[in-house]
């Protein structure tokens, strides 16, 4: 049975969702990992594949080649800026975005950026384009901060997304997470998305829940994953139950199968 809930965004909804999260979330064992690995291995792939919640939501349909743009750069810069403004409270969020942007440019100038990276993209931008990137990142960081500032429990900006390499299956899973809220001994993840949630937003959240649990060394799932769509003023959540973890894993394997079929169709 799914635990997907749908709420209108308000100051108290987020706190209520965190407070009412399950006290004992499920945990994935080594058997679960082995079983998942076997299922992914059964879906043969010549190339290394990367799967994430977005692909699950798109039912494995190919989206074209990723390219950096102000819209795709905003999350990386915005999250980093909020993290920085938490540790350096004298910085405004706009200043923090500027510092992060400058850091990326310095990384490129120092020769540490590889082609195709964010730093590489930013270095190729004109000042007007950099201004737009900065404006988009400021929007992101402000919306994330407004959500975080209303929380009663301690929170931090996630240091990175969750990554899990499925053993011997040429597959990397990537789970998005923006805020990690700690309540007692359990974790609640908050994921922010622009636009409005579609019909497959729930499977997307479950995929993030499963990948996060897989990336945890002890396999302990987050008590709840909250998906926040500030532009639509909507909050969705799924609980860290075994049923949701299984559903998330199933969706990921199905996505791998769909993508494999597409590759075969293209090859034919």
């Amino acid at each position, binding site marked *: 049975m799914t635990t997907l809930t749908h709420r209108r965004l308000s100051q108290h909804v987020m706190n209520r969702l965190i407070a009412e999260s399950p006290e004992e979330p499920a945990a994935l064992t080594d058997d679960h990992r082995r079983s998942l690995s076997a299922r992914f291995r059964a879906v043969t792939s010549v190339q290394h594949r990367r799967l994430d919640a977005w692909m699950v939501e798109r039912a494995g349909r190919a989206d074209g080649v990723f390219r950096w743009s102000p819209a795709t750069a905003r999350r990386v810069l915005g999250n980093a800026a909020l993290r920085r403004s938490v540790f350096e409270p004298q910085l405004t969020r706009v200043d923090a975005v500027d510092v992060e942007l400058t850091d990326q440019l310095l990384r490129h100038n120092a020769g540490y950026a590889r082609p195709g990276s964010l730093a590489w993209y930013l270095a190729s931008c*004109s*000042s007007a*384009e950099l201004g*737009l990137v900065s404006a988009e990142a400021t929007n992101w960081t402000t919306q994330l901060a407004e959500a975080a500032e*209303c929380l009663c429990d301690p929170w931090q900006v996630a240091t990175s997304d969750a990554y899990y390499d499925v053993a011997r299956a040429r597959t990397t899973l990537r789970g998005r997470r923006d805020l990690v809220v700690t309540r007692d001994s359990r974790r609640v993840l908050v994921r922010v998305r622009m636009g409005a949630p579609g019909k497959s937003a729930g499977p997307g959240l479950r995929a993030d829940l499963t990948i996060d649990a897989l990336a945890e060394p002890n396999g302990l799932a987050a008590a709840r994953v909250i998906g926040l769509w500030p532009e639509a003023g909507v909050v969705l959540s799924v609980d860290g139950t075994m049923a949701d973890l299984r559903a998330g894993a199933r969706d990921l394997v199905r996505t791998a199968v769909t993508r494999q079929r597409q590759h075969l169709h293209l090859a034919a």
Partner: protein
Amino acid sequence: MTSFLDAPPASVMDVLRGERATRPSANNTAAAGLRAMLEDAIYELLGPDLRDVPLTVRASSLRRDSIVSTNSAPLAQVRGILINQALRLLCAGVTVDDVCREASLAWCAEAGANDLTRYVDQLDDDETARLAADVEAHWVTLKRSLGPLSNRWLPRTSLRAYQRLAGGNVILRDVIDLMVGTTSSDVASVVLLDVTTSPLDEGAERVMRYHALVQTLRTSIVPLRTSMFSTATGELWSSDVNDETLARALGDVLDVLRGLAT
């Protein structure tokens, strides 16, 4: 006769921010009632059946000009887009020397290639020069009038909002050019600004109210003020958001829906 002003004219930001001490408490209770009223009225209007194609209301739906708007011309649309991009650059602290060129670069980076960018690409030299001069004129008005914008006011630009109502039968879409203030404060501090390149008219009032309504539905917090600035005339209309503003906005939206449903 020469007359002197007692104080320099207030900038747009001065008007938007107003007196800090007189701000009311944040109203976070009105949104639920507004949504319920809107849902009920839409149900009476459209009935229980789900439509194949939802009715979409945008800020432009509320202008209802009796004559064909000059803004419907592609060049006027481009001018509006470029001024909006220039506002974003201004808020991001970018020094803009050649506004038309730099705003165009920002626009292309954001939107990619589309019909309008292709239209601009095929303009001849005279038309390009005319567009550049036009954008420059509006830009000068905007830059002079906006006033200093502190980073502490949390300026956000081109904020989108999307509200699904009546089970998806109706969609309210909105883009706010500039928003300052925070929703996580105990006092109302969110101010909305719409920048337009056309003169202000009755439709502008409806658009201002619409912005306030959609923002209230989106965040569940009533904004402090909603404003509109015309770079064509240098006029600024600004009004505090109260229950009456939101009730009138609700009526405006229902009027549009009545028109769309028939």
